[in-house]
């Protein structure tokens, strides 16, 4: 199997996507942080009429937590507007290149109508590699560190 060929032909929607957590511009950061924790989601898409206006990630949250800024502000003041977005039919290779070169850890994915279909994160790419390539990854033992305390035998 040719990895390059696969990454150039397989589309991002074949990876395991996270369900998009879509909130409005007026949602407060405090509310968003609570919902991110509850949904176990590192990404909020700020949407209006099913279109993506901005993105607010774990990283943006961290900056606010570190500076002790108020959480009682609307998301639109802290989001990154007009984020880089992938189309569901974009190739896995494109997602990898964007993550490496653009420094993104997660990218929103939209369908033909521009409606959010999910978020692809770096962990999903790693999982895709394990699922698809090469046999060696598959044949590795399922449990990390199957270590014996001491060598057996005389």
């Amino acid at each position, binding site marked *: 199997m040719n990895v390059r060929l696969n990454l150039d032909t397989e589309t991002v929607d074949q990876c395991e996507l996270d369900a998009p957590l879509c909130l409005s511009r007026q949602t407060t950061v405090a509310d968003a942080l609570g919902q991110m924790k509850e949904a176990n989601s590192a990404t909020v898409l700020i949407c209006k009429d099913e279109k993506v206006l901005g993105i607010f990630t774990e990283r943006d949250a961290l900056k606010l937590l*570190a500076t002790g800024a108020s959480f009682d502000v609307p998301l639109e003041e802290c989001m990154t507007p007009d984020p880089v977005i992938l189309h569901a039919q974009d190739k896995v290779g494109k997602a990898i290149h964007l993550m490496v070169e653009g420094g993104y850890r997660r990218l929103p994915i939209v369908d033909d109508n521009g409606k959010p279909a999910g978020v692809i994160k770096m962990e999903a790419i790693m999982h895709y590699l394990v699922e698809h390539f090469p046999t060696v990854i598959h044949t590795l033992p399922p449990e990390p560190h199957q270590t014996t305390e001491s060598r057996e035998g005389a």
Partner: protein
Amino acid sequence: MIVCPYCASENIAGSDHCVGCGQPLDDTHLAPPSSPVEESLLRDRVSALSPPEPITVDASTPVGEVLKLIVDRRIGCVVVAEGKRPLGIFSERDALRKLNVSAPALSSHPVSEFMTPKPQTLVASAKIAFAVQRMDLGGYRHLPIVDREGDLVGIISARDILRHLTEAMDREG
């Protein structure tokens, strides 16, 4: 001494399977890589990623300081260490999950309360494929790299691995 082709554990001569990871100690049964990308996964070792030295903090460091450090240094995590021994990892994910809106109230608490303890580590001679598998199993974005004594020598990220793969893809043309 036989060095495991997967995880680089040292095994006594004559062993069939690695004591570290349970894999067979020869990799001759593997299909030959069909492309430079496969080859880079199968053959290259973590050392090829040139793991940088991790930023470390003591277990008693207030978590508020650690948050500032992660933002200022533009990193995704710090390794909590005692001397050179890794005790845990504190990542931005830990910040969101465990501190969240309580961050200001908890900022003086020691980072050890919120870190993910006993991190998965690898030696620099482990295969990149092994690192990919470990990251996927644990859902980690970072793996501390240690020497044979377990002392911290570096750290690698999922992005480092993806970068390595894209370089192999570019070589493939």
